[in-house]
Protein backbone atom coordinates (compact mmCIF):
# COMPACT_ATOMS: atom_id res chain seq x y z
CA UNK A 1 0.00 0.00 0.00
CA UNK A 2 1.35 3.44 -0.88
CA UNK A 3 1.92 6.14 1.71
CA UNK A 4 -0.76 8.25 -0.03
CA UNK A 5 -3.52 5.66 0.27
CA UNK A 6 -2.50 4.93 3.88
CA UNK A 7 -2.87 8.66 4.67
CA UNK A 8 -6.27 8.79 2.94
CA UNK A 9 -7.59 5.72 4.76
CA UNK A 10 -6.28 6.92 8.12
CA UNK A 11 -7.55 10.51 7.70
CA UNK A 12 -10.89 9.84 5.96
CA UNK A 13 -11.64 6.10 5.79
CA UNK A 14 -11.44 5.29 9.49
CA UNK A 15 -13.24 8.46 10.69
CA UNK A 16 -16.02 7.94 8.13
CA UNK A 17 -16.44 4.29 9.12
CA UNK A 18 -16.52 5.01 12.87
CA UNK A 19 -18.91 7.98 12.56
CA UNK A 20 -21.17 6.21 10.05
CA UNK A 21 -21.38 2.96 12.04
CA UNK A 22 -22.15 4.81 15.29
CA UNK A 23 -24.32 7.84 14.44
CA UNK A 24 -26.06 5.86 11.64
CA UNK A 25 -27.85 3.39 13.92
CA UNK A 26 -28.25 6.05 16.64
CA UNK A 27 -30.10 8.48 14.35
CA UNK A 28 -32.13 5.64 12.82
CA UNK A 29 -33.42 4.44 16.22
CA UNK A 30 -33.39 7.83 17.99
CA UNK A 31 -37.22 8.07 18.04
CA UNK A 32 -37.63 4.55 19.48
CA UNK A 33 -35.34 5.10 22.50
CA UNK A 34 -36.71 5.77 26.01
CA UNK A 35 -36.37 9.35 27.37
CA UNK A 36 -33.32 8.22 29.35
CA UNK A 37 -31.07 5.32 28.28
CA UNK A 38 -29.09 3.06 30.59
CA UNK A 39 -25.45 4.15 30.42
CA UNK A 40 -23.81 2.28 33.28
CA UNK A 41 -24.11 -1.29 34.53
CA UNK A 42 -22.90 -3.03 37.68
CA UNK A 43 -20.62 -6.08 37.46
CA UNK A 44 -23.61 -8.46 37.22
CA UNK A 45 -24.97 -6.57 34.17
CA UNK A 46 -27.88 -4.70 35.86
CA UNK A 47 -28.35 -1.06 34.79
CA UNK A 48 -27.42 1.40 37.58
CA UNK A 49 -26.94 4.71 35.76
CA UNK A 50 -28.67 6.62 32.98
CA UNK A 51 -28.49 9.71 30.77
CA UNK A 52 -30.55 11.22 27.96
CA UNK A 53 -29.83 9.99 24.42
CA UNK A 54 -28.47 13.47 23.59
CA UNK A 55 -26.06 13.32 26.55
CA UNK A 56 -24.92 9.85 25.46
CA UNK A 57 -24.34 11.07 21.89
CA UNK A 58 -22.36 14.08 23.18
CA UNK A 59 -20.30 11.98 25.58
CA UNK A 60 -19.39 9.31 23.02
CA UNK A 61 -19.08 12.06 20.38
CA UNK A 62 -16.26 13.65 22.40
CA UNK A 63 -14.50 10.25 22.62
CA UNK A 64 -14.77 9.93 18.83
CA UNK A 65 -13.70 13.54 18.24
CA UNK A 66 -10.53 13.15 20.35
CA UNK A 67 -9.64 9.70 19.03
CA UNK A 68 -10.34 10.42 15.38
CA UNK A 69 -8.67 13.81 15.76
CA UNK A 70 -5.40 11.99 16.54
CA UNK A 71 -5.78 9.84 13.38
CA UNK A 72 -6.57 12.87 11.19
CA UNK A 73 -3.65 14.80 12.67
CA UNK A 74 -1.26 11.90 11.94
CA UNK A 75 -2.50 11.59 8.36
CA UNK A 76 -2.24 15.33 7.68
CA UNK A 77 1.08 15.96 9.45
CA UNK A 78 4.27 16.00 7.38
CA UNK A 79 6.29 15.92 10.60
CA UNK A 80 8.32 12.70 11.01
CA UNK A 81 7.87 10.93 14.34
CA UNK A 82 10.25 8.38 15.91
CA UNK A 83 9.50 4.83 14.78
CA UNK A 84 6.55 3.12 16.49
CA UNK A 85 5.20 6.39 17.89
CA UNK A 86 2.75 6.98 15.01
CA UNK A 87 1.27 3.44 15.16
CA UNK A 88 0.95 3.71 18.96
CA UNK A 89 -0.86 7.06 18.72
CA UNK A 90 -3.06 5.75 15.89
CA UNK A 91 -3.96 2.61 17.85
CA UNK A 92 -4.86 4.57 20.97
CA UNK A 93 -6.90 7.14 19.02
CA UNK A 94 -8.84 4.64 16.92
CA UNK A 95 -9.32 2.37 19.96
CA UNK A 96 -10.96 5.14 22.00
CA UNK A 97 -13.01 6.44 19.05
CA UNK A 98 -14.27 2.98 18.03
CA UNK A 99 -15.18 2.10 21.64
CA UNK A 100 -17.15 5.34 21.92
CA UNK A 101 -18.84 4.66 18.59
CA UNK A 102 -19.66 1.08 19.56
CA UNK A 103 -21.18 2.23 22.89
CA UNK A 104 -23.46 4.64 21.00
CA UNK A 105 -24.45 2.10 18.33
CA UNK A 106 -25.01 -0.86 20.67
CA UNK A 107 -27.03 1.29 23.10
CA UNK A 108 -29.29 2.41 20.25
CA UNK A 109 -29.74 -1.14 18.93
CA UNK A 110 -30.12 -2.89 22.31
CA UNK A 111 -32.37 -0.34 24.05
CA UNK A 112 -34.72 0.64 21.23
CA UNK A 113 -38.36 0.02 22.10
CA UNK A 114 -37.68 -0.10 25.88
CA UNK A 115 -40.24 1.69 28.12
CA UNK A 116 -37.77 2.50 30.89
CA UNK A 117 -33.97 2.56 31.09
CA UNK A 118 -34.07 0.37 34.22
CA UNK A 119 -35.35 -2.54 32.10
CA UNK A 120 -32.02 -2.64 30.22
CA UNK A 121 -29.40 -5.23 31.04
CA UNK A 122 -25.92 -5.70 29.68
CA UNK A 123 -25.55 -8.53 27.20
CA UNK A 124 -21.95 -9.95 27.28
CA UNK A 125 -22.15 -9.78 23.48
CA UNK A 126 -22.46 -5.98 23.71
CA UNK A 127 -19.34 -5.79 25.89
CA UNK A 128 -17.51 -8.01 23.41
CA UNK A 129 -18.65 -5.80 20.50
CA UNK A 130 -17.43 -2.63 22.22
CA UNK A 131 -13.99 -4.03 23.11
CA UNK A 132 -13.70 -5.90 19.79
CA UNK A 133 -14.48 -2.72 17.79
CA UNK A 134 -11.77 -0.87 19.71
CA UNK A 135 -9.16 -3.55 19.05
CA UNK A 136 -10.04 -4.05 15.37
CA UNK A 137 -10.10 -0.33 14.51
CA UNK A 138 -7.01 0.27 16.66
CA UNK A 139 -5.06 -2.45 14.85
CA UNK A 140 -6.23 -1.17 11.46
CA UNK A 141 -5.16 2.39 12.27
CA UNK A 142 -1.77 1.18 13.61
CA UNK A 143 -1.21 -0.81 10.42
CA UNK A 144 -1.95 2.29 8.30
CA UNK A 145 0.19 4.55 10.49
CA UNK A 146 3.16 2.16 10.15
CA UNK A 147 3.21 3.14 6.44
CA UNK A 148 4.00 6.77 7.29
CA UNK A 149 7.66 7.84 7.13
CA UNK A 150 9.48 7.94 10.47
CA UNK A 151 12.81 9.08 11.86
CA UNK A 152 15.77 6.75 12.46
CA UNK A 153 15.67 3.92 15.01
CA UNK A 154 17.01 4.70 18.48
CA UNK A 155 20.03 2.76 19.71
CA UNK A 156 23.16 2.61 17.63
CA UNK A 157 23.68 -0.65 15.78
CA UNK A 158 26.96 -2.36 16.59
CA UNK A 159 29.21 -4.04 14.03
CA UNK A 160 27.96 -7.22 12.38
CA UNK A 161 30.50 -9.94 13.26
CA UNK A 162 30.43 -13.24 11.41
CA UNK A 163 31.28 -16.72 12.69
CA UNK A 164 33.64 -18.80 10.60
CA UNK A 165 31.14 -21.33 9.29
CA UNK A 166 31.99 -23.34 6.16
CA UNK A 167 29.25 -23.66 3.52
CA UNK A 168 27.05 -26.61 4.44
CA UNK A 169 28.26 -26.50 8.05
CA UNK A 170 25.65 -25.76 10.71
CA UNK A 171 25.70 -24.58 14.29
CA UNK A 172 23.05 -24.08 16.94
CA UNK A 173 23.05 -21.70 19.89
CA UNK A 174 20.52 -21.71 22.71
CA UNK A 175 20.17 -19.65 25.85
CA UNK A 176 17.63 -18.91 28.56
CA UNK A 177 16.91 -15.62 30.32
CA UNK A 178 14.96 -15.42 33.57
CA UNK A 179 13.24 -12.37 35.02
CA UNK A 180 12.33 -12.79 38.66
CA UNK A 181 9.73 -10.09 39.29
CA UNK A 182 7.16 -10.97 36.58
CA UNK A 183 7.21 -14.53 37.96
CA UNK A 184 6.58 -13.36 41.52
CA UNK A 185 3.92 -10.86 40.33
CA UNK A 186 2.27 -13.56 38.19
CA UNK A 187 2.11 -16.04 41.08
CA UNK A 188 0.70 -13.33 43.36
CA UNK A 189 -1.98 -12.52 40.76
CA UNK A 190 -2.85 -16.22 40.41
CA UNK A 191 -3.43 -16.37 44.17
CA UNK A 192 -5.50 -13.18 44.04
CA UNK A 193 -7.64 -14.57 41.20
CA UNK A 194 -8.27 -17.74 43.26
CA UNK A 195 -9.35 -15.62 46.24
CA UNK A 196 -11.53 -13.44 43.98
CA UNK A 197 -13.64 -16.32 42.61
CA UNK A 198 -16.30 -16.25 45.37
CA UNK A 199 -16.03 -12.48 45.96
CA UNK A 200 -16.55 -10.80 42.63
CA UNK A 201 -17.78 -11.27 39.08
CA UNK A 202 -16.32 -13.75 36.64
CA UNK A 203 -15.11 -10.90 34.44
CA UNK A 204 -12.80 -9.45 37.07
CA UNK A 205 -11.46 -12.90 38.00
CA UNK A 206 -10.85 -13.74 34.36
CA UNK A 207 -9.02 -10.46 33.82
CA UNK A 208 -6.70 -11.04 36.80
CA UNK A 209 -6.13 -14.65 35.70
CA UNK A 210 -5.22 -13.64 32.14
CA UNK A 211 -2.83 -10.96 33.45
CA UNK A 212 -1.20 -13.57 35.72
CA UNK A 213 -0.64 -15.96 32.80
CA UNK A 214 0.78 -13.10 30.68
CA UNK A 215 3.18 -12.08 33.47
CA UNK A 216 4.38 -15.67 34.02
CA UNK A 217 4.86 -16.08 30.24
CA UNK A 218 7.38 -13.24 30.35
CA UNK A 219 9.23 -14.59 33.40
CA UNK A 220 11.40 -16.78 31.19
CA UNK A 221 12.39 -16.72 27.54
CA UNK A 222 14.37 -19.31 25.62
CA UNK A 223 16.21 -18.12 22.53
CA UNK A 224 17.56 -20.33 19.76
CA UNK A 225 19.66 -19.28 16.78
CA UNK A 226 20.43 -21.72 13.97
CA UNK A 227 20.22 -22.18 10.21
CA UNK A 228 16.43 -21.75 10.40
CA UNK A 229 16.73 -18.27 11.93
CA UNK A 230 15.89 -16.97 15.40
CA UNK A 231 13.26 -18.41 17.71
CA UNK A 232 12.02 -17.01 21.03
CA UNK A 233 9.84 -19.13 23.29
CA UNK A 234 7.99 -17.50 26.15
CA UNK A 235 7.16 -18.95 29.54
CA UNK A 236 7.12 -22.57 30.51
CA UNK A 237 5.32 -24.19 27.59
CA UNK A 238 6.20 -24.65 23.90
CA UNK A 239 3.73 -21.88 23.05
CA UNK A 240 3.63 -18.90 22.60
CA UNK A 241 6.71 -18.30 20.49
CA UNK A 242 8.10 -15.93 17.88
CA UNK A 243 10.00 -17.22 14.87
CA UNK A 244 12.05 -15.02 12.59
CA UNK A 245 13.00 -17.15 9.56
CA UNK A 246 16.58 -16.77 8.26
CA UNK A 247 15.29 -15.56 4.89
CA UNK A 248 13.77 -12.46 6.51
CA UNK A 249 17.01 -11.42 8.25
CA UNK A 250 19.19 -8.77 6.62
CA UNK A 251 21.74 -8.48 9.42
CA UNK A 252 22.12 -9.23 13.13
CA UNK A 253 24.02 -7.16 15.68
CA UNK A 254 24.62 -7.14 19.42
CA UNK A 255 23.24 -4.06 21.19
CA UNK A 256 22.83 -2.62 24.65
CA UNK A 257 19.06 -2.59 25.21
CA UNK A 258 17.70 0.41 27.09
CA UNK A 259 14.08 -0.44 27.86
CA UNK A 260 12.76 3.12 27.48
CA UNK A 261 14.06 3.30 23.90
CA UNK A 262 12.00 0.26 22.98
CA UNK A 263 8.80 1.19 24.75
CA UNK A 264 9.43 -0.34 28.19
CA UNK A 265 9.48 -3.88 29.53
CA UNK A 266 7.63 -6.89 28.13
CA UNK A 267 6.72 -7.57 24.51
CA UNK A 268 6.70 -4.07 23.04
CA UNK A 269 5.51 -3.12 19.58
CA UNK A 270 4.49 -5.51 16.85
CA UNK A 271 6.21 -6.96 13.81
CA UNK A 272 2.90 -7.07 11.93
CA UNK A 273 1.37 -3.75 12.91
CA UNK A 274 4.43 -1.64 13.62
CA UNK A 275 7.92 -1.36 12.26
CA UNK A 276 9.51 -2.98 15.25
CA UNK A 277 9.00 -5.39 18.12
CA UNK A 278 11.16 -5.80 21.21
CA UNK A 279 11.19 -8.52 23.87
CA UNK A 280 12.61 -6.71 26.89
CA UNK A 281 13.07 -8.59 30.18
CA UNK A 282 15.80 -6.34 31.57
CA UNK A 283 18.22 -3.59 30.57
CA UNK A 284 21.51 -4.81 29.07
CA UNK A 285 22.83 -6.93 26.20
CA UNK A 286 20.50 -8.10 23.47
CA UNK A 287 20.20 -9.22 19.86
CA UNK A 288 18.96 -6.79 17.23
CA UNK A 289 17.79 -8.16 13.89
CA UNK A 290 17.45 -5.78 10.96
CA UNK A 291 14.93 -7.46 8.69
CA UNK A 292 14.93 -7.28 4.92
CA UNK A 293 11.61 -5.43 4.87
CA UNK A 294 13.10 -2.64 7.02
CA UNK A 295 11.53 -3.80 10.30
CA UNK A 296 13.51 -4.41 13.49
CA UNK A 297 13.27 -7.21 16.06
CA UNK A 298 15.05 -6.99 19.41
CA UNK A 299 15.37 -9.55 22.21
CA UNK A 300 17.32 -9.23 25.47
CA UNK A 301 19.70 -12.13 26.16
CA UNK A 302 23.16 -12.63 27.69
CA UNK A 303 26.19 -13.11 25.41
CA UNK A 304 24.46 -11.84 22.22
CA UNK A 305 27.77 -11.77 20.30
CA UNK A 306 27.70 -15.55 19.66
CA UNK A 307 24.17 -15.88 18.19
CA UNK A 308 24.69 -12.66 16.20
CA UNK A 309 27.89 -14.01 14.59
CA UNK A 310 26.15 -17.35 13.96
CA UNK A 311 23.12 -15.75 12.29
CA UNK A 312 25.26 -13.46 10.10
CA UNK A 313 27.29 -16.50 8.94
CA UNK A 314 24.13 -18.50 8.19
CA UNK A 315 22.65 -15.51 6.29
CA UNK A 316 25.86 -15.13 4.23
CA UNK A 317 26.01 -18.89 3.48
CA UNK A 318 22.32 -19.01 2.53
CA UNK A 319 22.82 -16.10 0.10
CA UNK A 320 25.98 -17.62 -1.40
CA UNK A 321 23.73 -20.54 -2.30
Amino acid at each position, binding site marked *: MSERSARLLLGFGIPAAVLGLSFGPFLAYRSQLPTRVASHFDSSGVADGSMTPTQLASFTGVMMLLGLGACVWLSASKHKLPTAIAPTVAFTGAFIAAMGGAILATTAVAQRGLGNWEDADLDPLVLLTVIGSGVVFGALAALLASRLPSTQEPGTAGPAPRMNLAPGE*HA*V*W*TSTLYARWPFVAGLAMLLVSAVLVPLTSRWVTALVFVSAVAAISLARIRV*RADGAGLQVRYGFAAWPRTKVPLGRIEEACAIDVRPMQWGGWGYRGSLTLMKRAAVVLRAGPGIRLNLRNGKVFVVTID*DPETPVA*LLNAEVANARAG
Partner: protein
Amino acid sequence: MLLRVDHQSPQAIHEQLAGQLRQAIADGNPAAGEKLPAARELAKSLGINVHTLLRAFQTLRDEGLLEVRRGRGTIVTGAAPALAAHGELARKLVVEARKAGLGNNEIRQLINVHL
Protein backbone atom coordinates in the same frame (compact mmCIF):
# COMPACT_ATOMS: atom_id res chain seq x y z
CA MET B 1 25.39 -22.92 24.68
CA LEU B 2 26.95 -23.16 21.23
CA LEU B 3 27.11 -26.48 19.41
CA ARG B 4 28.72 -26.94 16.01
CA VAL B 5 29.91 -29.81 13.91
CA ASP B 6 33.24 -29.82 12.08
CA HIS B 7 33.12 -32.54 9.44
CA GLN B 8 36.83 -31.99 8.59
CA SER B 9 38.02 -32.69 12.15
CA PRO B 10 39.57 -36.13 12.90
CA GLN B 11 37.61 -36.10 16.19
CA ALA B 12 34.29 -38.05 16.09
CA ILE B 13 31.21 -35.83 15.97
CA HIS B 14 29.80 -37.12 19.29
CA GLU B 15 33.15 -36.34 20.94
CA GLN B 16 33.18 -32.82 19.48
CA LEU B 17 29.66 -32.24 20.82
CA ALA B 18 30.46 -33.71 24.26
CA GLY B 19 33.46 -31.37 24.50
CA GLN B 20 31.42 -28.31 23.53
CA LEU B 21 28.64 -29.25 25.95
CA ARG B 22 31.16 -29.76 28.77
CA GLN B 23 32.70 -26.37 28.04
CA ALA B 24 29.27 -24.70 27.99
CA ILE B 25 28.36 -26.22 31.37
CA ALA B 26 31.74 -25.12 32.80
CA ASP B 27 30.91 -21.59 31.59
CA GLY B 28 27.56 -21.72 33.40
CA ASN B 29 25.30 -21.69 30.34
CA PRO B 30 23.30 -23.92 30.72
CA ALA B 31 23.40 -23.48 34.52
CA ALA B 32 22.90 -26.17 37.18
CA GLY B 33 19.27 -27.31 37.28
CA GLU B 34 18.53 -26.00 33.80
CA LYS B 35 16.87 -28.21 31.23
CA LEU B 36 18.62 -28.82 27.93
CA PRO B 37 16.71 -28.15 24.70
CA ALA B 38 15.16 -31.26 23.13
CA ALA B 39 17.85 -33.47 21.53
CA ARG B 40 15.66 -33.97 18.46
CA GLU B 41 15.48 -30.21 17.78
CA LEU B 42 19.21 -29.63 18.37
CA ALA B 43 20.12 -32.52 16.06
CA LYS B 44 17.80 -31.12 13.40
CA SER B 45 19.47 -27.69 13.65
CA LEU B 46 22.90 -29.30 13.28
CA GLY B 47 21.82 -31.56 10.43
CA ILE B 48 22.98 -34.70 12.26
CA ASN B 49 21.37 -37.93 13.46
CA VAL B 50 19.71 -37.59 16.87
CA HIS B 51 21.55 -40.71 18.12
CA THR B 52 24.89 -38.98 17.56
CA LEU B 53 23.80 -36.16 19.88
CA LEU B 54 22.28 -38.60 22.40
CA ARG B 55 25.66 -40.37 22.51
CA ALA B 56 27.27 -37.07 23.56
CA PHE B 57 24.53 -36.64 26.21
CA GLN B 58 25.25 -40.19 27.44
CA THR B 59 28.97 -39.40 27.87
CA LEU B 60 28.15 -36.39 30.05
CA ARG B 61 25.61 -38.42 31.96
CA ASP B 62 28.31 -40.97 32.78
CA GLU B 63 30.50 -38.11 33.99
CA GLY B 64 27.75 -36.94 36.34
CA LEU B 65 27.12 -33.68 34.48
CA LEU B 66 23.65 -34.52 33.19
CA GLU B 67 20.76 -36.51 34.52
CA VAL B 68 17.71 -37.73 32.65
CA ARG B 69 14.44 -37.35 34.52
CA ARG B 70 11.41 -39.17 33.24
CA GLY B 71 8.99 -36.72 31.65
CA ARG B 72 11.18 -33.73 32.45
CA GLY B 73 13.97 -34.13 29.96
CA THR B 74 17.73 -33.79 30.41
CA ILE B 75 18.81 -31.62 33.34
CA VAL B 76 22.23 -30.18 34.26
CA THR B 77 23.14 -31.63 37.68
CA GLY B 78 23.96 -29.45 40.69
CA ALA B 79 27.59 -30.58 40.77
CA ALA B 80 27.99 -30.22 36.99
CA PRO B 81 29.58 -26.74 36.71
CA ALA B 82 32.38 -27.61 39.17
CA LEU B 83 32.84 -31.09 37.68
CA ALA B 84 32.96 -29.75 34.12
CA ALA B 85 35.45 -27.00 34.93
CA HIS B 86 37.82 -29.26 36.90
CA GLY B 87 37.34 -32.29 34.68
CA GLU B 88 38.91 -30.23 31.92
CA LEU B 89 41.86 -29.36 34.19
CA ALA B 90 42.27 -33.05 35.10
CA ARG B 91 42.24 -34.05 31.46
CA LYS B 92 44.95 -31.49 30.66
CA LEU B 93 47.02 -32.65 33.64
CA VAL B 94 46.88 -36.27 32.49
CA VAL B 95 47.76 -35.35 28.88
CA GLU B 96 50.71 -33.16 29.95
CA ALA B 97 51.99 -35.68 32.51
CA ARG B 98 51.92 -38.51 29.96
CA LYS B 99 53.79 -36.33 27.47
CA ALA B 100 56.43 -35.86 30.13
CA GLY B 101 56.70 -39.65 30.45
CA LEU B 102 54.86 -40.20 33.73
CA GLY B 103 52.86 -43.40 34.23
CA ASN B 104 49.32 -43.77 35.63
CA ASN B 105 50.46 -44.60 39.17
CA GLU B 106 52.80 -41.64 39.28
CA ILE B 107 50.00 -39.32 38.14
CA ARG B 108 47.66 -40.73 40.85
CA GLN B 109 50.37 -40.21 43.47
CA LEU B 110 50.82 -36.63 42.31
CA ILE B 111 47.15 -35.92 42.92
CA ASN B 112 47.01 -37.88 46.21
CA VAL B 113 49.80 -35.73 47.67
CA HIS B 114 47.43 -32.76 47.41
CA LEU B 115 44.37 -34.51 48.87
